[in-house]
Structures are given as C-alpha cells and as structure tokens.
C-alpha cells in the first residue's frame, strides 16, 4: 500500500467507517427501529415530526440519516433533506431564513421508490437541537406548525430537558437507550477482526464498562489505544488508561487515604497538586472516587457519611461544569471528606441543616 492510500485509510475514524447505513443495522434501539421501519413500510407519508434524544454514541444521528436514505431515492436526497447542526450558525435568523427557505420550496412530483410512493414532504434534520437558543426554538415551533404539510423535522439532542416543552410536544419523542454490554461487545469484536486489532475479551469489556454504553466513545478509545502499539500487537490496560485519560489508581488511593486514614490536610493538598499538575481531569477523579465508595465491600464510611460526601462531590462536579477552579474544588472536597470521616456523632451537621 503506498503512502497516499495508507494515510487516508489509517486516518479515517472508525466511528465514521463503521457507521450503520440501514435502519435495521442500528443496534439495540428496538422501539425506534420498529416504529421507523413501520413508517417506511407505509411509504413514510404518515411520519410525524420526530425527536430523538438520549446519551451520546447511541445511534441518533445514524438513524436519522438511515431513515432519509430509505424513504427517498438517492437522486433526490439533497433536494429533500436539509441537515443543520451546531456547527452552523444558530439564532433566530437561521431559523427564519434557512429553514423557511428550504421548507417553502416546492416539492417535485411524487414518484415511486421500491413500489412505495415517495412522500411529498421534505425532511429537516436538526442535529444537536439542544444547543439551539430558546428564542430560536420558539420560532422553530411555529415554523414547524406552519409547514407541517410539506416538511418533517427530525430533532436530535442529548437532553430533552433542554428542548422547550412546546417544541417537544409537537414531536413524537423517541428515547435512545445506552447500549447494553452484549451489543457493544459484539460490535467491537467485529471491528477488531476487521481492523486486525488484538484485544482480549476482558479488555473489550473493560472499555465498555468505562464508556457507559456510549459506543462512539468506546470505539474512539479502542482506536486511540490501537495507535499506541505496533500494528498487530495486543492492546493492554495501560493503553486503555492512557487513551481514556483516567486518573491512575495510585493517586486515587492517596486521595482516599489522605481524607479518611491520615486525616491530613497537607496530604490532601499534595495529592490535589499532583492531580492538577499531572493534567488529570478533576471530574474524572470524582467519578472514580464515587465508584470506589459504592463498591461492594467498601466499609470505611458509614451510610450517612457516604451520603454526605457524595452529595458534596456532586455539587463540586456541578461547579466544575460551570468552569470553577479544579484545584479549589478538589481541595474543598478533600477538606470536607476529612471532616466527614472524623464525625461519627452529630449527624445533622454532616448535612448542614
């Protein structure tokens, strides 16, 4: 293989390379797939506006694309489908111009595809719909109503709570579930074979656990890890840890013991220092700490202490999401953890009532 070929083959993200093409290829989302296949059977004419929501990497965008590919023949796809997403401009003007312009355009003569009448509407796929401003969503709502004879909208988002209620109520909502281990495992194994990557069953399962049902993330972690070893060598835990950017066990251990065993603030400061200066993500540390606390036989803290600390950690993560200083938030959690582990009586002070 010459360099040109190699370069383009190597560099394609597996997420794109192995994206499902047909509705039925989309893994696991049985409710949605059934509903959409039905709709396609009937020629798609009865399709309402759709709202696909759920965690990332579960097939929302793939399914939307597969749907339009099955309803419309290839030749008219570009006239009948408009795809908009967060990488385009957002704001009230976009809604008014782009969408209206597209929606108002006349639809050609109804033809037949595979024996079924092609529906006479156009489809607008709005990816990352929860990134659209509230104002624009309000405008979108009426546009949808006005043009519902000639267009159908497919809104895609992660959090349905970010979609204003009046908009969501105009759509048929479909929740995309996180993929179960079995399903992800099969996909990953298949891709490993196809890409000649050596990874043990346990390792694949580890990746899946770490990525919480997000197939995209699992695949990216796998691809990223595969780049760290020579082609054909086995991928190990080390590569996965590096690829996923998690905090090393040793630091987690030190944090835990600084809070609960040594009860030393100096130690807490030292660990936090190492975490921050090591470039490790603070939210990662909090997640890993949480996993530790809810482990089967973890007994260092009693129920109430555990509750108080985890509530504090949740609040810290929320602050981090707002952009607060990692160092200060971790120090705060560490200090609170020390205080919590020392107090056995006087329980309501744990919760600051």
């Amino acid at each position, binding site marked *: 293989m010459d360099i040109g070929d190699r370069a383009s083959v190597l560099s394609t993200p597996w997420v794109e390379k192995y994206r499902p093409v047909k509705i039925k290829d989309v893994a696991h989302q049985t409710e949605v797939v059934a509903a959409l296949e039905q709709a396609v059977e009937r020629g798609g004419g009865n399709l309402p506006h759709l709202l696909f929501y759920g965690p990332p990497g579960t097939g929302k965008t793939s399914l939307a694309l597969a749907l339009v590919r099955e309803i419309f023949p290839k030749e008219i796809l570009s006239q009948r489908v408009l795809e908009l997403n967060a990488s385009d401009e957002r704001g009230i003007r976009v809604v008014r111009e782009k969408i209206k312009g597209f929606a108002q355009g006349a639809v050609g003569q109804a033809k037949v595809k595979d024996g079924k009448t092609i529906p006479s509407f156009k489809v607008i796929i709005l990816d990352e719909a929860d990134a659209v401003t509230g104002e624009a969503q309000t405008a979108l709502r009426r546009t949808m109503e006005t043009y519902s004879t000639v267009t159908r909208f497919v809104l895609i988002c992660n959090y349905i709570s970010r979609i204003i209620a009046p908009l969501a109520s105009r759509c048929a909502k479909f929740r995309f579930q996180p993929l179960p281990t079995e399903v992800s495992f099969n996909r990953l194994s298949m891709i490993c074979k196809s890409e000649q990557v050596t990874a043990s069953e346990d390792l694949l399962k580890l990746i899946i656990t770490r990525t919480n049902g997000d197939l995209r993330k699992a695949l990216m972690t796998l691809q990223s890890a595969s780049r760290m070893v020579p082609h054909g060598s086995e991928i190990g835990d080390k590569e996965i840890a590096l690829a996923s950017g998690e905090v090393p066990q040793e630091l987690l251990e030190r944090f835990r013991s600084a809070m609960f065993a040594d009860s030393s*603030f100096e130690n807490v400061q030292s660990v936090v220092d190492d975490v921050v200066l090591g470039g490790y993500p603070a939210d990662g540390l909090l997640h890993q700490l949480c996993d530790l606390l809810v482990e089967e036989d973890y007994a260092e803290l009693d129920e109430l202490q555990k509750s108080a600390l985890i509530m504090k950690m949740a609040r810290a993560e929320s602050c981090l999401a707002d952009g607060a200083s990692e160092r200060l938030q971790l120090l705060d959690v560490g200090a609170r953890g020390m205080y919590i582990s020392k107090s056995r009586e006087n329980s309501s002070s744990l919760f600051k009532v």
Partner: protein
Amino acid sequence: MKPNNRGLLWVDKYRPGTLDEMDFHLELKERLEGMAQRADIPHLLFHGPPGSGKRTRVSCLLRLIYGPAAEKLKVEHRSFKVGDPPKEIEMTILSSIHHIEANPSDAGFSDRLIVQELIKEIASNAPLDVTAVRVPFKVIVLHEVDSLSRTAQQALRRTMEKYSRTCRLILMADSLTKIIEPLRSRCNLVRVPSPSEKEICDVLQKVSKEEGFELPDQFAVKVTKACSRNLRRGLLQLQSSKMDNYPFAEDQPVSRADWELVCIDIASLLMREQSNKRLLLVRTRFYELLTHAIPADAIFESVTMELLRSADQEIAPAICECAAEYEHRLRQGQKAIIHLEAFAARFMQIYKEYIDNQYSMLIDDD
C-alpha cells in the same frame, strides 16, 4: 540542551526544537514519534497545566511530521468577516505552509464563528495531489480551547468530523475538565503533566551550565519550590533573580512577578487585621490587580494558596470551602471585584471567629 537563536529569554533560548532534545516526558516522546512515523495523526488534544511544555511538544511534533518547513513561521494579522450581521474580527495567526495556529478565544463572543472559518479555510486549501505529498493533510493548532464557550466547542466537534480527511486539529488546553465530553472523545488525548521538582531542578542546572554561571543547589531548590512546577515560570524567575543579584546570596529571595507579590501582601493584610477599614484597603489592591489585567482566577488562587500556607491547619478546610464557593461565583458572575471582595470579607469573618475562639479557650484554660 542546545541554545537556539530564538531570543534572549532563557525560556525561549533553551526551548527544545526537536523531540530528541526533550529533557523529560520521554514516554510521550515515543508516542509522538510513533505517530509521526506512521504519517497518521488523529485529532489530538494536548492537555496539562501551564508551563508544562505543551506548546513546545506540539512544535516538535510538527517539525517531525513536516520537517524544517514547519519552523518557518509567518505572523499574520488577519481580519475575518463573520456572523450575522457581519462583524470584523481581528486575529493574530501564526502559519507555515503546512499548518496554522490561532487562539480563538481572542475573538471573544465570536469564537465559534472564527473556529468554523479557520477550519473551512484550511480544509479547502488541501494539497491537490494527495499521493505526491508524504503527509496528505494540514494541521490547525488551536490554543486555549478550554476557554472556548460550550457552543464553540460544539461547533468544533461537528466541523472536525466533517473535514477530517483534509485537515487535522491539534487542540491545546490547560484543563481537560473544561472540555466538553464529545470533544474529549473525538480526540486522542495527550496528557502533558508538569515536570517533577527534580526535573525542573535539573533543567535549571543545565541552563546555568550553558550560560556559564554558578547555581548553588540550595537556590535551585528555592526557585523550584517557588515556581509550582511551572517550568516557564521557573526559568523566568531564575533569569530575573540573576539580574537582581549575582552571585546568589545565602538568603536571596526568589524574584517574583509583581502581581504575585501583591497577592502575598493581600493575604498578609487579611490575616493581620479584620475590619471594615482593612477590607477597603484590600479592595483597592484587588482593583489595582484587575486594572492591570491580571486574571481574576489567578488572583484568587494565589491569595488562597498564600492564606493556606500561613494560616493554621485547623481552619484550612474552612478556607477551602469559602474559596471554592466564591471562586465558583466569580466564574458565573460578571464583576470580578465583587466576588473577590466577598471572599475577603468572608475570610475575615472566619478568621476572626477562629482567633476569638482560640483566645477564649486560652482564657478558659486559665
């Protein structure tokens, strides 16, 4: 370590030009070399605290991939017309024939649009004959990606997917936490930790040898401790300490940036007196710093760390809680001075209560 001709500051003069010249992060070096060899780089996200060497590593990597052409940089001041209604945004761009570098958060609220423009531009100027070039894509280096708004990061995400055939992105961030999850998962993460204290000490010693001056171990350690494992800061501090006074005296203090000294002073003011009058004085100090464009979060951290250093261990948790709370508010709010002042006031309250408690316990003991 080889001196180059990049300037008088030791930070620049001794910056490694190739991966081989790197004094630490050797494992990282292997990884980057592997990527460059295979002519396969995915999108990369270099993350790590300031002064850990991210920028240097990226330059070295580019040099390895594209050869010396990557070092011939041009500085451009470009103006982009973006948005609706169209606005003119001025940006400083560094470019070579194979890549461009920019800091999109310079564009403020229009950061998202700049990012899209840059990527579209580079992606459309891809080399025509893919097979004739060893590396068939261009690179866009974006600095301070963690300062980008969430919308800008979202925009980046999809644009990356769209143009990944013709260009690669190398993103740089101080902290991974501020990068949205989807962006984290679309890039290969390259963690660039701060060098250890020993590594910093070693570098300082090497520089002193190259520069031909005496650096007593004890002073080297002092500088190392003072720079909080930020090598850039360490080298600057060493250089300006030497300019202050050489040969280094026994008890010579490490030369520090003015603003850091002000912060240390603020901490000391807070601890020595807790009163309205004092609060007003502290406020003026804060204002001075802010008007000199010292970032509010840096002031916060600096003052807090100094307070933690000087106050009793016993109230350290209370200080942390208070600092975390007000710094969080600072992030969400608009006027930094209000939150800095609130923090100062609250600290005074905590400290005063603590002192009074200690005092009354002493009296009781009698």
